[in-house]
């Protein structure tokens, strides 16, 4: 008889107090492994926090050896015109908001159509979307750059091409149909068709059915989807770094690098303070939405 079998029996018969030795053999070592992995998982984050609140970027005397808010005060004082941190926050929030709301709206429209309406090219349309999803935007960098620089030539500065937040938003919106439609198609399929039909019999128009009935039914999922897309877009580094090239247009993802990428003015403490501010809302959102994210993960939606 193996130990595992005995354990199973013990569990089935009912909880009995174990001797410390037996407890260690069956459970205690798991706690030790769990603690070890937890340390691995958390020490870089403790490190950031420690540096962000330290008065000395090197923290050679160990974690949390000093505590000050000076780095945060400097960030928000905005006296460094080359690193307008507050402007970066504003840029990030509004670019990510517009893009995530827009992309959820666009993909929800398309997903509803795929779910409820039957038309020629429906199947191949869905397949094309899945195929496009397999072409990651990083592979299209050159083409995206070329298209945006053409728009820049046509419409000038501060419009919709390079160097413009709208250019970036358009690129994100362009990716939205490939990214979100298939997932939402699944959500819409879970809403019974009889609801549409009942409303139709009552004389509702198709827009009323869509906006007032179906969208309301799936609105929690849409909200979650929007937040997930917000997390993804505000963490995007590559596209943002290609499109924007003036410091006051940067998003947090691109801007924060300025604190540590420039050889003569590295400021590790300021970077960590900025990272704490940038990461806190995202981590909070993520932990809050854990349930949906985990169920989305197995459905194939991977955080980008």
């Amino acid at each position: 008889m193996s130990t595992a079998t005995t354990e199973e029996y013990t569990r089935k018969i009912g909880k009995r107090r174990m001797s410390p030795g037996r407890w260690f053999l069956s459970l205690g070592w798991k706690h030790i492994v769990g603690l070890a992995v937890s340390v691995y998982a958390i020490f870089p984050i403790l490190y950031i926090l420690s540096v962000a609140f330290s008065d000395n970027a090197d923290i050679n005397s160990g974690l949390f050896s000093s505590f000050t808010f000076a780095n945060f005060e400097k960030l928000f004082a905005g006296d460094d015109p080359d690193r307008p941190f507050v402007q970066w926050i504003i840029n990030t929030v509004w670019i990510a908001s517009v893009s995530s709301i827009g992309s959820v709206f666009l993909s929800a429209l398309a997903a509803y159509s795929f779910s409820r309406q039957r038309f020629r090219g429906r199947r191949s349309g869905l397949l094309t979307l899945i195929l496009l999803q397999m072409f990651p935007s990083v592979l299209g960098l050159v083409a995206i750059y070329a298209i945006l620089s053409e728009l820049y030539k046509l419409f000038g500065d501060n419009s919709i091409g390079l160097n413009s937040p709208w250019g970036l938003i358009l690129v994100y919106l362009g990716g939205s149909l490939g990214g979100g439609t298939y997932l939402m198609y699944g959500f819409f399929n879970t809403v019974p068709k009889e609801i549409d039909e009942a409303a139709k019999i009552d004389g509702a128009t198709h827009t009323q059915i869509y906006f007032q009935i179906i969208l309301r039914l799936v609105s929690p999922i849409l909200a979650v989807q929007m937040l997930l897309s917000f997390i993804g877009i505000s963490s995007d580094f590559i596209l943002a770094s290609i499109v924007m090239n003036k410091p006051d247009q940067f998003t947090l993802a691109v801007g924060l690098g300025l604190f540590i990428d420039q050889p003569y003015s590295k400021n590790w403490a300021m970077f960590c303070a900025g990272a704490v501010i940038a990461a806190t809302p995202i981590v909070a959102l993520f932990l809050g939405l854990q349930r949906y994210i985990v169920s989305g993960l197995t459905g194939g939606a991977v955080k980008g």
Partner: protein
Amino acid sequence: MARKTDDQEVAKENPIKTAAILRARRKMVDDGGTPSLRGTIVKIILLGLADAVALFVSLLLIAQHQWVYLTGVVVVTLILNWIYLRRGGLPAKYLAPGVLFLLCFSFSVVVYSGFIAFTNYGGQHNGSKQDAIDSVQLGAMVTDTNAPWMEVSILEDNNKKFYVLASDFMSEFEADGATAVPHYYLGGEDFKAATGWHEITGDELSKVTFSDSQITFKPDGTSYQAATGYEGFKTLTIDQVTELSAKFATLQVPVSDNIDADGWMALDAQAQGVQRTFYDSKYDAATDTFTRLSDGKLFPADNSIGFFIAEDGERLNDTGWQAFVGMKNFNTIFGNENLRAPLLKIFSWTVIFAVASVLSTFVLGLALALLFNDERIRGKKIYRAIMILPYAFPGFLSAYVWKGMFSFEYGFINYNILGFEPGKGIPWLAEEGAAKWAVLLCNLWLGFPYMFLITTGALQAIPAELTESAVIDGATPWQQLRLIKLPLLLVSLTPLLISSFAFNFNNFTIIYLITGGGPSGDPSLGVDVGGTDILISFVYKIAFSSSQGADYGLASAFSILIFFIVGGLSMIGFRRTRFLEEVAE
């Protein structure tokens, strides 16, 4: 009645949804009246806004004579209006907005990448052929340094044509060798017009007005006055000249009706003086060739490489145009002997990086999931919250932070954790082997929570009866894992593992932000092949940060290949999944 029964059935299945239906119905009744009126108004407003934007864009395009783009905008606008104004055709109404963005910024990106891969688009070839001709022609002008520099005033006639009125104090002197003999000239853009370039002499001088300020020549103090105006013409003020400086930079005032042979008067950068200028080379549209006038050498256009190039390989200058080069970029990738070894190295490291990332994260994630799939463990939620943190933390920040922790002298890992003296630790980012371990360690940290989450989910989906019956049959824990849990897990997880492989194959952010692809490789290659460069970071270097000048064509060719590699490997993987499913049944 029938409807009511339906509702009751739905109510049995899902009371919340029924409530929503009833609420929605009540709202529809509350809204009252003709239901489509408000919808119609909203539709007209939205469509009007879209049309207004399209009109605005069209006007901008008309101003720039961009007829191709204009046609596109007009056609798209018409289609959109047709879709939304006609009755029926519902699918199009729901799909149009998304599809429009998809076509413009996603589909077009894929197609355009494919197109660029067959061109030489890049730093030296970034425009149309006409742009290149203009630019080469502009660069192929030489100022005759022996010709006198003449002070000018710029004049304008009633037809808004520009003329230059030049005063020459330099070319001729009186017998004393110091006193200049002034000459005055007038000429316009068109030589054949009444006032082509000519010297103003005799009676015509009476039409000229002269400046008040005197130009004084030593030693005798004799003074001369510059010409500033001419009867019937308007003299531009300094401000007007400054405003039009871009136009004057290319203004040509021919000195004869043969501009090729005799040259023209060109304004200097400040538009204060003119000097005789000649074409060094001249473009002939009929033969599509630049001819260098000094020695008659021909530089025909070579449309296969996008340069004007002589038979002996000499080029007029480095400005070329975007040309269709066929398979050249792919030949460079597969046929270039010098690149073969480094490319193979990058490719194999890319595969190793992707496989090692997936395997390490999966093994750690699976181990943790098995460990914590035990209801007797207390504090599971706390463990879970901590372990999920690396996944919740934005990836680009993690990469920066790990880069900082890996730094050599006082880095957190070398100094605080491993306890090395400053300057004696592991050169994490400077030495190739260590740098590879560094990116893998960081990627393990980033990725294991994901694997932990998905394996936990999959593990809980395995029916308890299966393990229980195995236990009764006397299977050891290892046998349970190997023979029952793992095969079942792989059925549901393989697609996710494949996606994870595809993601890491192109995991640009990690490589770029931690090591930048470095440490740098052999500089004699001409391209920087770094020790930790994966294909996509190498492509980025070719396209955006190459010392050799950007080569977008080559970069796109690589992108296309990567797409096929990843796509192909994924297809094989998914096929295999189906195989696993069959085995499981």
